[in-house]
């Protein structure tokens, strides 16, 4: 008896000392390494032979073409620089970037998703460096509207989004709005809607005429964020939603948010949204719209090329919604931020590259290849009544009114999960609007507690 107890004691003490050893050396960086910010320079030519490793997510539409051209031009301009490009889809980049950044030899330039889940976590771990010095050097603040720079800014501790330090700049502009089929619209005698109320009454007309009002597929889960953000930003206004996502004020259970959820559930009940949307893939919802089976489709400006090619450049339009008091308000803003990693040995070259592929010259290349640059050149005038024209008009309108609402999944590190699962529950009427918003608030509150 005694012997076995002694043995047990030994095991317990061994286990606890093992635990202590483990506790002493946990995974991850022990402290966020402080980046030394030295003198910065525009001089690339004298940097010697440099291989710049770049990770981007330009895999869709006309983006690969644009990136390839820009990289070639940059290498021609600076023959001493070789660009090693690693291009992955958005979701692949999101999952692999963390591992790449925590390695000893991370890429020099990476495209980081905004908000707390990615950019905030990278900054907290000291893996990307602030670029305020380069912003000054290249005068980015006079090129970019302040709102766009705000989306790429954080506090230095990574805890407050839209803080004082800039961590990157963005190449493309993005907005989520509603695409409409012009032929069907004329057939029904309708005009493009500008508010949720108008959209709703037009959907009723389409339904009555036996046309699917809004094609929507949520099997892939992410489209739920777009639909909810689209309705919520138009109902609650851009300032309110922006503060909410930022974590500075407001609550997800406030009346405007609950009303947005109620509206969407109402659309399901009235048959405005594709039936069994949870079992329909985003691709098939998009192709339903592109083949003329539905009047509307809520989607992002990144669908421009696809829809223009499938439906004809003048047969499809794009519009964003105004709030009740006539203020434009739409989710989106800009593409991922091009950031410089803290361990990069050539920050000057990296900054020169980022400047080259993001600002005015790059904007021309992007337009030429059918993409929307983050800053539209003031001289740019696309051909009238084309989809490109209607997207440019909407983008300018929303920017001018400061109506950009950030993507809702930036809110907390687990918000993507909570929001997408919650939207599926809402659409399937497995949860009520208040239950849905309650779940969002629960996630939000526990994140704010930890911050």
């Amino acid at each position: 008896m005694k012997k076995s107890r002694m043995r047990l004691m030994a095991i317990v003490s061994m286990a606890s000392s093992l635990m202590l050893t483990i506790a002493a050396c946990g995974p991850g960086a022990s402290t966020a390494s402080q980046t030394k910010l030295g003198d910065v320079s525009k001089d690339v030519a004298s940097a010697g032979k440099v291989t710049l490793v770049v990770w981007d997510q330009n895999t869709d539409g006309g983006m690969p073409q644009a990136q390839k051209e820009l990289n070639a031009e940059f290498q021609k301009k600076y023959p001493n620089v070789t660009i090693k490009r690693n291009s992955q889809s958005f979701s692949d980049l999101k999952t692999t970037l963390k591992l790449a950044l925590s390695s000893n030899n991370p890429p020099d330039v990476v495209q980081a998703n905004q908000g707390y889940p990615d950019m905030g976590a990278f900054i907290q771990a000291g893996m990307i460096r602030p670029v305020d010095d380069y912003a000054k050097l290249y005068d980015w603040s006079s090129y970019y509207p302040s709102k766009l720079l705000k989306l790429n800014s954080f506090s230095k501790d990574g805890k407050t989004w839209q803080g004082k330090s800039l961590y990157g700049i963005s190449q493309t502009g993005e907005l989520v709005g509603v695409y409409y089929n012009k032929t069907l619209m004329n057939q029904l005698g309708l005009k493009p809607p500008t508010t949720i109320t108008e959209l709703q009454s037009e959907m009723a007309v389409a339904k009555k005429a036996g046309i699917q009002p809004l094609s929507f597929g949520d099997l892939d889960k992410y489209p739920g964020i777009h639909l909810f953000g689209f309705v919520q930003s138009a109902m609650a206004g851009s300032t309110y939603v922006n503060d909410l996502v930022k974590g500075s004020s407001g609550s997800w259970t406030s009346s405007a948010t609950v009303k947005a959820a109620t509206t969407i559930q109402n659309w399901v009940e009235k048959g405005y949204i594709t039936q069994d949307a949870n079992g329909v893939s985003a691709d098939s919802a998009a192709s339903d719209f592109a083949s003329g089976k539905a009047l509307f489709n809520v989607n992002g400006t990144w669908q421009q090329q696809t829809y223009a090619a499938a439906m004809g450049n003048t047969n499809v339009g794009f519009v964003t919604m105004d709030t009740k008091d006539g203020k434009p308000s739409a989710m989106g803003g800009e593409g991922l931020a091009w950031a410089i990693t803290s361990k990069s040995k050539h920050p000057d070259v990296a900054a020169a590259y980022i400047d080259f592929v993001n600002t005015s010259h790059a904007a021309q290349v992007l337009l030429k290849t059918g993409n929307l640059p983050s800053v539209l050149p003031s001289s740019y005038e696309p051909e009238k009544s084309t989809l490109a024209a209607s997207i440019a008009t909407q983008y300018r309108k929303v920017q001018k009114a400061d109506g950009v609402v950030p993507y809702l999944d930036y809110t907390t590190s687990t918000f993507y999960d909570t929001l997408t699962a919650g939207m599926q529950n809402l659409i399937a009427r497995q949860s009520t609007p208040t239950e849905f918003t309650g779940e969002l608030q629960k996630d939000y509150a526990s994140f704010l507690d930890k911050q």
Partner: protein
Amino acid sequence: MTRDDESGDGRSVQPGLAASNEEYDEKKLRGSRFRSIIAPYLYVAPAFVVFAAFLGWQLVQTAEYSLFDWDGLGASTFVGLSNYLETFQDPEIRSSFIHALVLTLFYAGIPVIVALILTVLISRSSKMKVMSFYRTVLFLPQVISSVVVATIWVSMYSQNGFINQILNAFHLGGLTHAWLGDYSTALIAIGVVGTWTNMGLCLVLFLSGVGNIEPELFEAVRLDGANKWQEFFAITLPELRGQISVALTLTVISAFKTFDLVFVTTRGGPGNSTSVPAWEAYNRAFNTGQVGLASAVAVVLTVLIVIITWAIGRIDAKETA
């Protein structure tokens, strides 16, 4: 080293030497003891080294991570066993384990039972020349990459997919819906894909097992006047115990570690109705920045699989004893 040396029964000891040289005898004895104790380990060593380098170390590391609160990037905090506590308390993770149990029925239960029935039917016609063709066809789902399998089934389950078309053709239009998008059918729909893939494996295993049963045994019971089913329960089933245990081990493990099907078809949705432990581990490690919790889920899943494998192994134990 000869076989005789190892047998240790003394026959190999040369008579003269053994009698006169005690010291040598002792050395020899020690030598053979060394061989009998250490040698087997030496044989296993290469395999163990490979295991330790490519799996064991990662397993230890995962176990270590599970004791920390870590987002995968920054500093980590030691939290002891609280991730394990959360694994059992978090309703989402808890239900993912229940989903895995449901999948076991579809991945292991149904394929084994159906394959047994088919074995009885097919084994009687095993003299058929096209038998190998049937085996190939039935085994095919096992060979196809699971991502391809999942993509095929996604289109079959879709609103205008094959399954709904068939229902419409039989005037059962009322039953059609998006199978993967419905809370009541999504998990079952994934289970059916598992049944489809694992059925062939079980059948091929059982058919080869039946082939090994002495024909005399069947003749004997037939002479005693047993019918088809009595023959099955008296001879086929007991003789197939080994194969059944192998089939159950493989299929139950595949049910518990299901990831690819869920990843491609539903990503755990609608809501969280098809989330499984392996998906939770992946999603929390790479998407929601909860590496510690994800590791705890993975460790619990590993332990569970080891226990189940051990338990299934007991089915076979009697036969080898």
